[in-house]
């Protein structure tokens, strides 16, 4: 599997969370389909506006409803700075994807939540669904990655 280029901080494995976690442990990465060659591969760029410059932006790309928030296709993290962060994933097969990102402000390697599973650190999803009172479902966040690629914007800062 081709991994993404771009600046990649060493991703510390996140502690597995219970079902209420927005972003599951991105330890398992789904291998891309065999035979996906350059002619059918697209670049995915994600621009993330952090909420402040503390901690690390932890981003995961998911490729199916079944794997959403469970097993990422690819993941990446970058230190949060005052500028927007640019994540680049090269040579992904065109198709539907969803992105989840959180800002690990205290750098403890996980999305902190309260006792009912509400996140206490900034988070965001592709297509920035409104009115969330719980984790979104795949249909609310998925987008189509066309053969010539796409740029997705996610804003953590409110």
């Amino acid at each position, binding site marked *: 599997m081709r991994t993404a280029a771009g600046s990649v901080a060493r991703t510390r494995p996140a502690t597995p969370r219970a079902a209420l976690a927005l972003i599951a442990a991105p330890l398992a990465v789904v291998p891309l389909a065999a035979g996906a060659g350059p002619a059918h591969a697209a670049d995915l760029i994600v621009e993330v506006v952090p909420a402040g410059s503390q901690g690390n932006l932890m981003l995961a790309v998911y490729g199916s409803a079944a794997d959403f928030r469970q097993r990422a296709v690819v993941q990446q993290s970058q230190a949060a700075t005052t500028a927007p962060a640019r994540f680049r994933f090269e040579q992904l097969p065109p198709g539907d994807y969803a992105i989840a990102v959180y800002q690990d402000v205290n750098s403890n390697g996980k999305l902190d939540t*309260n006792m*009912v599973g*509400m996140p206490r650190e900034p988070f965001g999803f592709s297509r920035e669904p*409104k*009115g969330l*009172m719980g984790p979104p479902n795949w249909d609310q966040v998925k987008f189509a990655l066309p053969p010539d690629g796409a740029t997705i914007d996610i804003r953590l800062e409110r």
Partner: protein
Amino acid sequence: MDRRRYLMSIAGLATMPWADALLPRLAGAASPACAGTDATPAGAVAGQCADRADRLASTAWQRNFAAVPDAYGPTRVAFDKPLPDGLAGVLYRNGPARFHRGPTHYGHWFDGDGMIQSFSLAGRDLVHQGRMVRTAKFEREERAGRFLYPGFATSVPSPARIDAPDDLNSANISVLPIDGGLLALWEGGSPYRIDPASLATLGRQTWSEETDGMPFSAHPKRELDGTVWSFGYMAGSGKLALYRLDRHNRLTRAAVIEARDVDMVHDFAITRRYLVFVTMPFDYQRERNDQAFYQRFRWNRERASQVLLVDKSTLTLAHRIELPGLAVFHFANAWDDGAQVRVQLMQLDDFGAANDAIMSAMRGEPIARPTHTRAVELRVEPRGGRATSATLHPMAAEFPSIDPRRVGVAHRHVFAATRSEGMPDAVFGFDAIARLDTRRGTRERYVFGASILAEEPLYVPRPGGTEGVGWVLATAYDFAAERTTLHVFDAQAVDAGPLCRAALPYGLPLGLHGAFVPA
């Protein structure tokens, strides 16, 4: 935009033929429609005056909220007679106050952003201040110049992203004085900390990482040793959060229990043994997150209410008892009585009609379906799994207040806002306050004058006195003069009228709940 056009546009009055008669009144000029002239027969004048009085009454709420400033005072006014000996301190009140922002408007009383009022009673004077609670929602909407978030019952165009309940927090329902500080309470999210002297917003309250951002009720209950019990609901979750604070505002217990029909829970009661909840038979449509909160609820008359008794020592559900579906906002109190738990609450005849009435009032329309709330007592037998209900008094009753030293034990008196027979059905609200003696089933009542809407009557004990000895503090809004007055009553004789009162030089937005901090 001049004030007249502004008011007409926001009120939708532009097509109403009587709008011109109304607006000169708002500008302070005498309305020519009600003044006699040589050309106008007396009968016609009387009819016009009656019409004008009706219009004043049905537009009272709409006008009250039309142009609320961000701040009031400090304003010093004199009481007309000296305050009674022993009464000194500060009455704090909270209530929804901001309903218009740029091109966007809220249509339900409970939508508005919260504003804290402080009434400082000392000697012969009242000093009043009012300040908006500057929640995260408020600050974001200030920057945007419009409402970004739905209120309790009103959605907004192009809403901003909502990531957590606190994004919607308007901190607009009540206050909790604790440990020398003051909390502004919403019910769907965190309290906000308020400076008790300046009413400045200090920040969002959080007690622990585990409870950070969780909802905290507007109706916590304080025991004699200062322990505060509260809860929080999270619509669609099937869960209730439970909290115990000590008198120093430290969280000493927190738990989450599973329960059905806890998608909207405004108030509760405590006894020596239990936390007491009464659920309502609403069907909640969680997938309709494009709507405002209340719009997702449908009353289901086929389903029952449940009394939930939570054991205070384990914070687990001990008993669940069914009873016919009932609608409730407020509890007066509850207590353990041998094998029974007795629960006094204010039962609404019709939850939907009550909310429709509120929205009619906000639009300046007469109420189509008058509906009432009455004090009832449930007798719950946990072991037998039975509950019976009896009306305590037929009078309209809301905003109940009891002696704070009787919380969780048997009380006798309930103070409440009520309606006199003279109040037109078409007008929402209350025009009187009463003390209900629940032992004898009798009541003493004081009716404010015509054109006056009564607010929550708060009982304040005389230090060292027995139950019911002390005073009642009640604000009331005159919708003809557009002025709010604070009244002080002898709690044992509210029907004798106020001992003293102080009139503010402005009318305050009609508020919800308060608390008194003795000097």
